[in-house]
C-alpha cells in the first residue's frame, strides 16, 4: 500500500493550512482592532450604562448582599492584586503597626478629617460575613469588621456638589500608577459599605489591604480598594488617572462593577 501523498497533494494541503491560518489570524486581528476602536468602546459603554441602570432599578437602594454564617468562612481569604505595597512611606507605617497612619477625608466636605486607626476603631462598627466575587470568576467568604462609610461621610459633612467618593491607595500594581477607585453616592451610603480594618476577627493582614480596605458588597472585587490612605469627595473623576474612575477602569474594565 502506498501511503506517500503526491507532491501536488502536499502543496495543496500546505496552501490550505496556510490559508486557514491566515484567514483565522485576519479575523482575530480584525476583532481585536474592532474591540479597540472608539465606536466599539462607545457601544460597550452604552451597554454598561444599561446594565447599571437596570441593575439599579432591580436592586433597591437598601437591598443587602447575602450574609453568611460563620461556618461558611473560607479557611484562608485569597489575596489578589498587590499583596505587599513597596511604597517607602507605606513600609515605614506598616513596620510600626500603622500607629502613625492616618486616614484623610477631604474634597467636597464641610469638615476635612484626619483619623488614626484607633479613632476609626473607636467609632461604631459593623461586622458582616460576605462573599467576595473576583472579576476573574472565583469567590471567597470572609468576615469583615469596619466603620460604615456612610457614618464617616456624615461626620465629614458631604457637600451637595459631591457625586463620587474616590479612594486613594498606597499600592501601585506591578509598580505602575497608584491604585484608586470610586463609588457613587448611592453605593457609598449603602449600609454594608465599610472601610474595614478587621478580617475574620483579626487585624486586616497586609496581603488583604492593611490597615484599611473598602468593602462594597454589591460590587466585584476590583472596586474594593485596599491600602486606603485618603477618601476624596469629588464632583467628577475625569481629572484622576486616565479619567475612567479607577485603576482597572483605566485599563478597560467597566466602571459599573455590579456584574
Amino acid at each position, binding site marked *: 500500500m502506498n501511503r506517500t501523498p503526491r507532491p501536488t497533494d502536499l502543496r495543496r494541503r500546505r496552501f490550505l493550512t496556510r490559508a486557514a491560518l491566515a484567514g483565522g489570524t485576519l479575523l*482575530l486581528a480584525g*476583532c*481585536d482592532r474592532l474591540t479597540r476602536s472608539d465606536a466599539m468602546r462607545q457601544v460597550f459603554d452604552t451597554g454598561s450604562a444599561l446594565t447599571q441602570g437596570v441593575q439599579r432599578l432591580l436592586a433597591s437602594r437598601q437591598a443587602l448582599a447575602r450574609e453568611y454564617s460563620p461556618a461558611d468562612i473560607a479557611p484562608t481569604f485569597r489575596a489578589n492584586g498587590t499583596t505587599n505595597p513597596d511604597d517607602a512611606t507605606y513600609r515605614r507605617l506598616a513596620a510600626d503597626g500603622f500607629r502613625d497612619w492616618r486616614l484623610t477625608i477631604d474634597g467636597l466636605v464641610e469638615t476635612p478629617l484626619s483619623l488614626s486607626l484607633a479613632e476609626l476603631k473607636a467609632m461604631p462598627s459593623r461586622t458582616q460575613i460576605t462573599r467576595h466575587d473576583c472579576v476573574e470568576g472565583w469567590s471567597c467568604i470572609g468576615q469583615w469588621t469596619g466603620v460604615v462609610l456612610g457614618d464617616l461621610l456624615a461626620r465629614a459633612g458631604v457637600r451637595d456638589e459631591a457625586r463620587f467618593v474616590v479612594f486613594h491607595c498606597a499600592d501601585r500594581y506591578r509598580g505602575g500608577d497608584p491604585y484608586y477607585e470610586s463609588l457613587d453616592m448611592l453605593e457609598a451610603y449603602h449600609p454594608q459599605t465599610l472601610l474595614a480594618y478587621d478580617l475574620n476577627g483579626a487585624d486586616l493582614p497586609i496581603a488583604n489591604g492593611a490597615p484599611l480596605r473598602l468593602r462594597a458588597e454589591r460590587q466585584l472585587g476590583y472596586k474594593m480598594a485596599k491600602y486606603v490612605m485618603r477618601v476624596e469627595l469629588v464632583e467628577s473623576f475625569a481629572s484622576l488617572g486616565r479619567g475612567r474612575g479607577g485603576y482597572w477602569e483605566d485599563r478597560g474594565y467597566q466602571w459599573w462593577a455590579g456584574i
Partner: protein
Amino acid sequence: MRFPTVFTRPATRDGDPAPTVIRRHTRFTRLWHWVNVICLIVLLMSGLQIFNAHPALYWGKDSSFDAPALSIRAIRNEEGEWRGITQLGGYRFDTTGVLGISGPVDARERRAFPAWATLPGPRWLSAGRQWHFLAGWLFAPLLIAYLLYLVIGGHLRRHLLPRRDEWRRLGQTLGEHLRLRFPTGEEARHYNLLQKLAYLLVLFVILPLVVLTGLTMSPTLDAAWPWLLDVFGGRQSARTLHFLCALALVGFFLIHVALVLVSGVVNNLRSMITGRYVLPPDSIPDPSEEARDEQDT
C-alpha cells in the same frame, strides 16, 4: 414556527404532483434564529475568554481552591516540560496542544482554552467581558420575547408539545432517526417527537438556565434577587452550571448542524432563510407497504 400553509400543488405534465412547498418558519423565528447564531458564537467565545481568567470550576457558595470540580492548568513535569493538564474531579488528562498549553509549537502559550476558541484571541479579560455582556443584552431579551411569542401565539401547543400518539411511536421514530431515515411527504409537515423534545429542552430549559445562572454571578443581582443563590446552590455552583449549559449548547449545535446536513441541507437552509420548505417526496413505495396502506383505507 408556522407549518401548514400550502403554496402550490399543480400537476406536472406527466401527471405526478409537483413537490409541495409549505411555509415552515415565520419571519420572527427566522430572524431570531440567525441573530441567535451570532449571539451564541460571541457568547461562547467571550465566555471561554472569561473562563481563562480563572480556569477552574467549583460547587457551592464559594471557591474551594484545593478541590475544584474541573481545572485546566499548565504544569511543569519532571523533565521541566510544560504540559496542559485538565483535571475533572479525581481524573487527570494530558490535553497539551488544546487545553492548558496551546499555540504553534515554537510559541506555546499557557492558557486554558486556546486562542482560536476565545474572543478576543489574546488573553484579555476586560474585552471578553465587554463582548459577553453586549451579546447577552441582545440574546436574553430576544429569548424572552421569543418564548412569549411561542406560548402566547399558540406555536408551542400546535407545533412543539408532543401528542399522545407520538409517544407511542417513540421507539419507531428513534430507530428511523438512528438509521438517518427522515420523515417524508405529509409526515415531514410537522416536527417529529425527537425534534420536539430537543427544541423544548433547548428553548425552555437550557437557554433560560444559561441566562439565570449568568445573572446569579452578578453581585448586584444577588442582592436584588437572593433566591437565585438558593435555586442554584450558590454563586460558584451557578458558574459551573453556566459552563455546563454552554457545553450542552455546543452539543446541541453539533447535532443540529449534522442533522441539517444529512436531511437536505438546501431545503433546510432555505426554510430558515425564506421560510419555504419543500416536503421531501415519499420514496417509491415498496409493494408490501402499498398493500398495507390499502388495507388501512
